[in-house]
């Protein structure tokens, strides 16, 4: 099982694997420990989401794929 991701540490540009096999890039972090704003990079189950922005719930984040250089 993947480690619990501390969403408060996520920054714009970080790439994440989330539920339903999708990947997103962080757009901004409200630092509430519950949500992040992100843009879909891939969404195999629902391709229409790719490129759209959404709020991602912390428990839907599976793992951090890439930490941005910022």
């Amino acid at each position, binding site marked *: 099982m993947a480690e619990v991701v501390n969403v408060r540490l996520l920054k714009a540009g970080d790439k994440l694997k989330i539920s339903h096999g999708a990947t997103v890039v962080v757009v901004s972090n*409200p630092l*509430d*420990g*519950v*949500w992040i*704003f992100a843009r879909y990079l891939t969404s195999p189950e629902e391709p229409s989401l790719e490129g759209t922005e959404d*709020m991602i719930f912390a428990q839907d984040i599976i793992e951090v794929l890439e930490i941005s250089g910022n």
Partner: protein
Amino acid sequence: MATKTKGRFVDELVDLKAGQISREIFVNEEIYAEEQEQVFTRAWLFIGHESQVPKPGDYFVSCMGEESVILCRGRDGALHVFLNSCRHRGMKVCRYDEGNTPVFTCPYHGWSYATDGKLVGVPFFKDAYHEKLDKSKWGLVEVAQMEVYKGSIWATWDPAAPPFTEYLGDFKMFFDLSLEAWNGTDEPLEVIGGVQKWLIPCNWKFPAENFSGDSYHNISHRSVDMVGIGPSGTGRRDTQERADSRRLQVSFPDRGHQTGIYVLPGGSPTAASYQQSPEVADYFREAEEKRRAIKGEWGRVTGSPGEIFPNTALHPRQPRSIAVWHPRGTHQTEVWRWYFVDAGAPYAVKDFLRQYYIRYSGPGGLTEQDDMENWNYAHSASRGTIARRHPYSYEQGMGSEQTNFELDGLKIPGTVMDLTEAKSSEQNLRNFYKRWAEFMDAPNWNELAGWR
């Protein structure tokens, strides 16, 4: 036109024909519960000041009666006032006093609301709710009406309440004495030093009555006058302009608002003030000269403590502050006090005022401590079985009030008591309780807006 209301409170527990008010209205827990519904869900209540939320996403957590509310400036710049309670299970969605945020997220289950109150985040929306929850129906509960008046922010839960300026009526010109810059213009004020908050063991109506115009309790402040905390080094404030003026009480029977004022004789200059600091004295002298020039004859009027019904107290002159008496149960009040300075004043002026304000008001202020001691023990000594059988006396000055009052060509609206002649009067207190009793008995705003 007088309101039609008559019931358990008008003429009974609040018997203003006899000038007597039952102690039950201060200590009875059923009456307290009733007034949360009758008064605090229907009246306009002070929320905060625009200077507290200047940028999109800024918020200030305030109160309406017992209930926590969020004053928030949305991303589009519009102001909102929301009940601070998640629609899912009621948890507070904001537990800070103030700040800036893109969303208010409930820490219990994670429902998240945008700064316009819309529900934007629902955990497992797809998997658990199958995207069937109608988010548009589950936004934060917003007040029925919200208005900004000269930087002050007001709200009511009652959609039938009249607009705020109608609620104020002619009291508006007296409220302006608290909201205009010292030079009488609409240049902005700002809240200085944060909001002081503290608890007093008394019913909220004790301080509300006091600030309505208790002109009889000056003896309580004799010690602070002897200490000399005033901005010229004597008394608790500058007294010469008051000594030069006619001292009046003004009340508005159909609205429940009331205040004290001082009116200089025609052609009289305003006395010098703030003599402990030449820079501050110069600032106020110049501001006062401009105010007198702009306001004409009305510039002869200066403010004194007052009360906007039900629980907002005004202290317009020295020090300049607004207080709200939040009910916290029958036997406890939480005071929130805002202090104001001209936003454009030099730092030296703001800092001088800050220090004077906290010497005078708040939990550490010498003048406010005198008042709190009185309210505390008056309340506790009124709770007993025997004590409750004996009403308070509000007979002072009954029948001496005047209308169409005029002083050297300046007409004063409302019902006026001349305290230069009478020394003291309880007219303003009776006015406050008259309106309180009407709110307690009236079923709706059709009866409360008797002036229509």
